[in-house]
């Protein structure tokens, strides 16, 4: 239990630093920016209570906001992501696919399940994030394409991370 807690804490610090110092500086054609930090919310155990998910989403977003001078923007998007997560899980898994004490990882849940899970949640998060950031529906197509491209980038990184680090 303590070991798990420590593992998640280290993951949080690594992801926030990775996001603030490296990923925020990546600019494909100036607009596309991956937000890998959502991986933290994606990988929390299935048993995490919903209210805790929401709080963690909010504070994770707030951390990122502090580093990128955008108070509230990431916090709102990540809270939204945390709110959607249980519904997404219900939608794509039957009762017997989820075993007790397995985290939602690629190695446990299989490639197809994990891809659908990541696709849904990352898309929702990025759309919410980019539209809150511009705070208008003016230039709808432009913002839409920005969020879709960034989401694709993030999804690729999430999948790669599953093969590189969380193999076990």
């Amino acid at each position, binding site marked *: 239990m303590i070991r798990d807690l420590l593992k998640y804490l280290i993951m949080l610090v690594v992801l926030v*630093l990775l996001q*603030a*110092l490296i990923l*925020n*500086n990546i*600019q494909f054609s*100036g*607009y*596309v*920016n991956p937000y890998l930090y959502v991986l933290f919310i994606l990988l929390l155990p299935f048993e995490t209570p*919903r*209210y805790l998910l*929401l*709080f963690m*989403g*909010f504070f994770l*977003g*707030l951390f990122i*906001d*502090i*580093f*990128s*001078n*955008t*108070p*509230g*923007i990431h*916090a*709102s998007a990540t*809270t*939204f992501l945390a*709110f959607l997560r249980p519904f997404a899980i219900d939608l794509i898994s039957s009762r017997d696919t989820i075993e007790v004490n397995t985290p939602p990882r690629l190695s446990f849940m299989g490639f197809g399940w994990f891809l659908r899970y990541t696709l849904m949640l990352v898309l929702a998060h990025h759309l919410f994030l980019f539209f*809150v*950031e*511009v*705070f208008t529906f003016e230039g709808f197509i*432009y913002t839409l394409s920005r969020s879709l491209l960034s989401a694709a980038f993030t999804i690729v990184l999430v999948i790669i991370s599953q093969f590189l680090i969380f193999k076990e």
Partner: protein
Amino acid sequence: MRSLLQFLARFHVFFLFLALEVISLILIVNYNNFQRVRFLNSSNQLSASVYEMSSNLTSYFQLKRINEELARENAELQTKLQKLQVLDIFSHADTSVISDTTYQFIPARIINNSVNKQHNYVTLNKGLLDGIEQDMGIIGPDGVVGVVTNVSKHYSSGPSILNRRWRVSAKIKKNNYFGSLYWNGNDPQYARLNEIPFHVELAIGDTIVTSGYSSIFPEGILIGVIDEFNHDSGANFYQINIRLSTNFKTISHVELVKNNFLEEQINLEEQNTDD
């Protein structure tokens, strides 16, 4: 009352979600008044020192380019000095150039910067202890960069030109018509200049400089050149696209401008609005 409590307990997750979203929204909307949430920005000690560590590491890889930049700036200053000395020979009595101490310059390094957001900010490694104050202009080797809005002990930060919440007063160098320059959130190389009326003659390549009216920047600091312009039928003003002279993707060393008479000017201007 009881059924209300039951209702709340049943949907507590949804209400918590709503509450957190409302808090986020309040943060977003209030941020227009930069100062209110002062600690939630990158000049706070924790995030600024992380950024400084990272910048200390990466700055080694940019030394060559930085040296070239400094050498070029140095050369420009030398030429200016030469010209001044020539002037000095002809008019010993005229000391107006030297005694103009309205503006003071403090060098600093950018430790964090972005170009891919809608609201981009720079963080600098100088703060209160180095004499940095709010509303000091930030100037790079190629012209205007931004303005300081938040200051902590050792760090300061503020919006760059690439921030939709900030405008700068700019003018066309050759004929002194002035307007307001802003970024439209798309390309970090280009900005827009507004409020230039139709009868003004423009040409592609005209230089755009600061007007000096905003009291943050001295007059005549380079901003960019006109890249294209056109006027919509029915509108009163040109739509002018400016190619910014500063490359925000590579900028690292800047100078902060302090206007020694800023307070005096603002007080005077406030008296006008009182009347």
